[in-house]
């Protein structure tokens, strides 16, 4: 019973499937069998006659019908001469022109990542150290020396001050 109902279901499904795809095939066949327009052939022939005949990229210049350009060997010789002149010219230019020096690398300032901040070429300089601090303050005589003189030779003035202090 069960197998029978399964068979019936299968056959029904197959029938539906065939009917469904049959519909599609009928439509496609109908379209496939449509007649072409009556004057299609004439229009195509006319279009082909109007079309350029040559398939080459470079057309050979038109010359007199019985001129030298009609002979194959003359065409070949002319083509060979053109190739020779072009290749020779190229070689002459190549052999005379020296290759340029390789460009030096230029260090560019670091560029910040897209959307980030840059240093704007600012260079960090460390703060200079302060002078050494003396344990004992200098006597007034030395300390009151002219500031200009101290600036000129600070080491020398220091020694002189030491001599003056010592007994």
């Amino acid at each position: 019973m069960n197998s029978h109902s399964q068979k019936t279901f299968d056959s029904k499904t197959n029938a539906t499937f065939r009917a469904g795809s049959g519909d599609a095939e009928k439509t496609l066949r109908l379209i496939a069998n449509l007649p072409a327009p009556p004057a299609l052939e004439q229009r195509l022939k006319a279009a082909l006659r109007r079309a350029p005949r040559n398939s080459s990229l470079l057309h050979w210049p038109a010359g007199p019908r019985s001129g030298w350009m009609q002979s194959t060997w003359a065409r070949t010789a002319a083509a060979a001469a053109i190739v020779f002149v072009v290749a020779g010219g190229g070689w002459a230019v190549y052999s005379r022109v020296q290759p340029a020096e390789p460009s030096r690398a230029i260090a560019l300032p670091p560029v910040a990542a897209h959307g980030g901040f840059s240093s704007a070429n600012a260079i960090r300089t460390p703060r200079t150290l302060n002078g050494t601090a003396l344990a004992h303050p200098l006597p007034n005589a030395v300390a009151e020396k002219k500031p200009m003189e101290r600036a000129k030779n600070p080491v020398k003035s220091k020694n002189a001050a030491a001599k003056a202090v010592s007994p």
Partner: protein
Amino acid sequence: MEIAPSAVEDEARQQVEEEALDALVGQYASTLYRVAFSILRNPSDAEDAVQEAFLRVLRHRDTLGQIRDHRVWLIRIVWNIVLDRKRRAKTRPETDDVAELARVLPADGLSAEQRAAAAQHHAHVLSCVDRLPAKEREVMVLSAFEEMTSVEIASVLGITESSVRSRLFRARNLMADLLQHARSLR
């Protein structure tokens, strides 16, 4: 003035080529048009595609002698042109297709109402065909041409004959599914 023999040969060769091309046009223009129309579904587009195919043949007419089966070769050319055009063309509204089908499809002995209903039905079926995967759809469309064997379809699509059969089987099942689904929605 004497005319060079090479010029005479060129003219004669050109004449032969023109005759061969004319013969190809006469023999296969209709088939190519139908193939193009089955995909593009527009008469002027199909005609343009056929013309482009023959212009390509004209450009490569030197190789005509090497072709074994001109029919399959030409169908392959027009097929590639049509697929390329279809890919580039913008999708048209379905109402255009229905109107076009009603105008083009044969309707002998049908009333205007029946004709419109038939066009609607065909448009619906074609929209289901369009929903098939490209590989299956292509085989299904080409299989509708009674004059094309599975070997020829395989040659046009550049696949094996067994692939054609399996794709056609899959296409039929998918198509039935799609149509059944559409019916159950109504």
